[in-house]
């Protein structure tokens, strides 16, 4: 409030400072009168005591104080009233007056407010001393208190009534003579009703000008109403039946009648909070019926959410203890869903984000309480999609008479865009079922339709969550249809948006633009975005490992499907997504081969059975044979047969597609495929793969380090292959050796030439499939020495010499006939010479150590009895 300090607001109550002054004056009176009251009490002067009490209580007649200050005054007086009550009790016990007489006497007080405070006090005494049955006294008190209709004064008087009678309410545990639990709750209900009415009325009292301030004041006072409901919940002997038949209907009647936004919100909430959850389940329909009738400004969403949260927690807690707490006679989901639907339908003012939040809460409830009811989930999703559609569809134009101009709403009319809030909520809504359902989301027909209302970027976020859930759940995906559905939902992860799709979402458009620029190398993409992208794609890639099937053919079909979906992903995605697919297929191929054999066997068997059926041998049962033949045919027909070759073809296609963008990766995969093909003895295929490797190497690898790496893996791969025909192997190895020798850097050349030598000696001659050509090994090593010799940096060439020496030693130990001890001795001599000429320094000492270790190895060999003879002639 504004205005000069201490001034009285025009027409309203005084301001805070002045309020405090008034309160302090009142405090003084209260203390003075309290003092005299005690004095009179000491003298057992009943008349004086009550007179002073009346004087004191007259302070509560003030209209000057706002509820906040009035409350302070009230609390001050409350202390004195406790003293007064004890005096009354003592006075009655002394035999001077009966409590009933006091009850009558105090009613002579002319002013109603003091009179009723005294009456309540006296009534409390009557009940304490048991002079009259509690239920009679309570009835009279609650009725008489109606005399105070002033909101503030009435509220506090009723509070005094509540606290004075708190421990005197008859309930199931009390003597029937003082009343039954029915009397108990009827009293509280009546007092609650009156309190509530006064509280609501406070909103319409214009002593306080600002509506907002009145609202605030009322909010501060709400406990005065709430404590009544709280008291009801704690009355012993109030069972479900009483709650359902009497208490709840009565409270709800007040809720409906008061037509006050704050009261409705607060009461609905407190009902949920104070009564036990099993009561709520028993009265769910009753309670929910009221919800749509609440005032427009009441936030029914929070009410329903609170209820659902409580109920679901209750159900879950029950399940932990092995108890099913969902009611069997009512379908709580149906009841809640109906209410939600009604609320949405009837509250035109309800904003879409609110609706979506509500739907999400309902969905959460459903997921918690009915985790198996996919139909419920589907229903919610479907309804949400419909609601969004309705809300976004432009309202049909209306002519002067209020009739729609067009009979049918135009389906092509542009729809309003979802607000950011709404988008967020839809996204949340779609994420709710993911954790629990993961793959089962695919069974929700409506999931996709709701997903489609989201802009691209948000769909992508949902897709990420879905992917994570699916991976965490780690359930196998085993049919093509599921794959299609899943990838349908994951579309935003699998490909870039089309221009239209991107246009609908500015952030997606931007992301796309940036991706395009970064692909051209013009700007470096935002690092976060890049790392997100990578994380997402790696997630998608992991899905591949969930694809499983007992039937190899089936699995292959699934991989085909997957490749098709991944194929739309563009260059940026395939490096992540296609690689695991290749490896998965490589794993599958041996099974495909087995299946192929199995199919062939079945075919034969079927043919044999058919033949047998057509020309039955003597004594055979023609019918049984025919049947067997049919069964064999049927089994054959039921199989999805993919020959293993198809598998390699699949890989070939994928890798070839990847090669231009990711030559190194493609090269490795081809090599891997080659090994696999070789193992399964498809040497022609293995050869083809190797050919592809060379093509990539020759056409696409220009970086010298990459070339070295490629050659290393190629050599390694060739070492693993066992089944190549001699001439194929030769041509590959020769090519390899040439490439090694034509590397750009001499040290690389040197090392690779020495490495390629291994391909000429893949095992002892007695091992099957081994390639042994000692002469060419020697050629390689000598060539390597020549190359090393021309390396200019002396430290480098000595190092290379020692490396080559080690190669010699290896072959010498491997019994390669062409490698003799003279070569070793010669090389050792050479190294020693070079070492002496080296500049001292770090490089030299490193080489020296390397060399010393090598020599130590040789000396060791010379000293061992097994090898001493062989190494004897090596001059170290």
């Amino acid at each position, binding site marked *: 409030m504004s205005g000069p300090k201490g001034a009285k607001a025009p027409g309203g109550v005084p301001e805070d400072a002045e309020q405090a002054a008034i309160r302090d004056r009142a405090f003084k009176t209260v203390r003075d009168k309290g003092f005299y009251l005690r004095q009179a009490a000491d003298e057992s002067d009943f008349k004086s005591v009550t007179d002073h009490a009346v004087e004191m209580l007259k302070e509560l007649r003030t209209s000057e104080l706002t509820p906040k200050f009035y409350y302070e005054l009230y609390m001050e007086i409350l202390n004195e009233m406790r003293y007064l009550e004890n005096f009354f009790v003592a006075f009655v016990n002394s035999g001077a007056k009966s409590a009933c007489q006091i009850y*009558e006497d105090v009613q002579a007080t002319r002013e109603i407010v003091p009179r009723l405070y005294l009456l309540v006090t006296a009534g409390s005494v009557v009940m304490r001393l048991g002079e009259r049955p509690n239920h009679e006294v309570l009835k009279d008190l609650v009725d008489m208190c109606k005399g105070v209709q002033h909101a503030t004064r009435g509220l506090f008087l009723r509070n005094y009534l509540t606290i004075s009678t708190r421990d005197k309410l008859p309930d199931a545990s009390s003597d029937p003579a003082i009343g039954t639990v029915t009397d108990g709750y009827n009293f509280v209900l009546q007092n609650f009703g009156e309190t509530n009415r006064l509280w609501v009325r406070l909103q319409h009292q214009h002593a306080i000008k600002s509506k907002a301030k009145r609202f605030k004041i009322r909010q501060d006072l709400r406990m005065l109403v709430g404590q009544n409901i709280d008291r009801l919940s704690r009355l012993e002997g109030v069972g479900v039946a009483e709650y359902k038949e009497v208490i709840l209907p009565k409270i709800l009647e007040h809720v409906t009648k008061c037509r006050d936004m704050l009261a409705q919100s607060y009461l609905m909430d407190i009902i949920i909070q104070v009564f036990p959850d099993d009561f709520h389940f028993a009265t769910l329909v009753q309670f929910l019926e009221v919800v749509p009738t609440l005032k427009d400004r009441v936030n029914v969403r929070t009410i329903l959410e609170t209820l659902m949260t409580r109920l679901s927690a209750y159900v879950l807690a029950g399940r932990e203890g092995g108890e099913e707490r969902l009611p069997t006679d009512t379908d709580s989901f149906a009841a809640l869903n109906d209410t939600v639907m009604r609320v949405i339908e009837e509250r035109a003012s309800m904003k879409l984000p609110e609706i979506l939040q509500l739907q999400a809460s309902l969905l959460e409830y459903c997921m918690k309480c009915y985790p198996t009811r996919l139909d419920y989930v589907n229903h919610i999703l479907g309804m949400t999609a419909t609601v969004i559609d309705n809300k976004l569809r432009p309202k049909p134009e209306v002519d002067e008479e209020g009739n729609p101009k067009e009979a049918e709403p135009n389906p092509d009319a542009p729809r309003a865009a979802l607000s950011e809030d709404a988008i967020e909520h839809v996204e949340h809504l779609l994420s709710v079922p993911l954790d629990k359902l993961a793959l089962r989301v695919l069974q929700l027909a409506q999931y996709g339709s709701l997903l489609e209302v989201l802009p691209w970027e948000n769909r992508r976020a949902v897709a990420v969550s879905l992917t994570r859930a699916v991976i965490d759940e780690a359930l196998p995906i085993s049919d093509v249809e599921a794959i299609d559905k899943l990838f349908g939902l994951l579309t935003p992860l699998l490909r870039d948006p089309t221009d239209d799709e991107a246009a609908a979402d500015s952030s997606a458009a931007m992301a796309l633009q940036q991706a395009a620029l970064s692909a051209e190398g013009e700007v470096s993409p935002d690092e976060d975005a890049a790392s997100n992208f990578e994380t997402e794609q790696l997630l998608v890639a992991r899905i591949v490992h969930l694809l499983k099937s007992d039937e190899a053919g089936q699995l292959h079909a699934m991989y085909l499907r997957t490749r098709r979906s991944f194929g739309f992903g563009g260059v940026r995605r395939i490096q992540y997504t296609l690689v695991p697919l290749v490896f998965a297929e490589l794993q599958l191929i041996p099974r495909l081969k087995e299946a192929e054999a199995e199919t062939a066997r079945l075919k034969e068997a079927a043919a044999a059975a058919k033949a047998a059926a057509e020309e039955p041998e003597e004594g055979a049962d023609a019918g049984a044979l025919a049947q067997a033949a049919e069964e064999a045919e049927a089994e054959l027909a039921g199989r999805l047969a993919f020959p293993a070759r198809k598998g390699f073809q699949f890989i070939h296609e994928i890798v070839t597609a990847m090669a231009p963008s990711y030559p190194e990766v493609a090269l490795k995969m081809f090599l891997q495929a080659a090994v696999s093909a070789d193992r399964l003895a498809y040497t022609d295929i293995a050869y083809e793969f190797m050919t592809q490797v060379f093509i990539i190497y020759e056409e696409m690898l220009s970086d010298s380090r990459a070339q070295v790496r490629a050659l290393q893996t190629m050599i390694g791969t060739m070492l693993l292959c066992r089944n190549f025909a001699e001439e194929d192997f030769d041509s590959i190895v020769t090519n390899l050796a040439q490439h090694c020798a034509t590397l750009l850097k001499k040290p690389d050349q040197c090392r690779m030439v020495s490495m390629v030598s291994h391909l000429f000696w893949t095992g002892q001659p007695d091992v099957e499939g081994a390639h042994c050509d000692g002469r060419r090994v020697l050629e390689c090593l000598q060539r390597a020495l020549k190359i090393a010799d021309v390396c200019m940096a002396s430290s480098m060439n000595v190092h290379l010499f020692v490396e080559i020496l080690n190669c010699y030693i290896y072959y010498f130990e491997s019994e390669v006939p062409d490698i003799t001890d003279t070569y070793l001795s010669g090389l050792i001599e050479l190294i020693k010479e070079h070492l002496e000429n080296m500049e001292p320094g770090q490089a030299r000492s490193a080489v020296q150590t390397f060399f010393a270790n090598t020599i130590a190895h040789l000396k060791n060999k010379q000293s061992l009895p097994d090898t001493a003879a062989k190494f004897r002639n090596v001059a170290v």
Partner: protein
Amino acid sequence: MDLAPAGVLETSATYDFAFPDTWKEFESYYGLNVTLRYCIRVTVFRRNYQSSIEHDEEFAVQILQPSPETNPPIKMEVGIEDCLHIEFEYDHGTYHLNGCVEGRVYFLLVRIKIKYMEIAVIKRESAGSGRGAVNESETIIKYEVMDGVPVKGEIIPLRLYLKPLPLTPTFRNIGGFFSVKYYVNLVLVDEEDRRYFKQQEITMWRDELDGSSADSK
């Protein structure tokens, strides 16, 4: 009634007397303009022209009445058009002096800002007749029965114990000379201190002797 024959009274003497057949038709009453007293007068007549010695000893008469055969409630609907409309009800029309006025007020329409409501018990004494008649009203008690503004549909209880109040039975045309009547006045006061009221007569009767009222002389 002669108590003693003429003679000389030298010591204290006690004389019994009785007025068995004297009809005390009316209750004692001490009002503003009217007093109805009973007394026993002792007169000692003296010889010659000396004045007689007289002494009055006053006593109170209270007349117990039978309870009324029927005692219907008072019900009434009053109002000011489009402004205030109430219905009030007193449980009875006749009360004994230790009784209790109980009733309730129904608010059917409230368009004024009521500050409070009270009931007042009013005693009206009228004496004399014709042109010389005197009327006097006295408010015995004002008793607040409601604080604040009720809303439509509100029912406010009324209860007033009569015992502590200085009341007499209703007297109607005593000796053709005076009457004492009682009224309950229901008053509504609005925020501008305008008063809206309706007065109803109630009849008072005595059902038991009341020591305190005799003392109150």
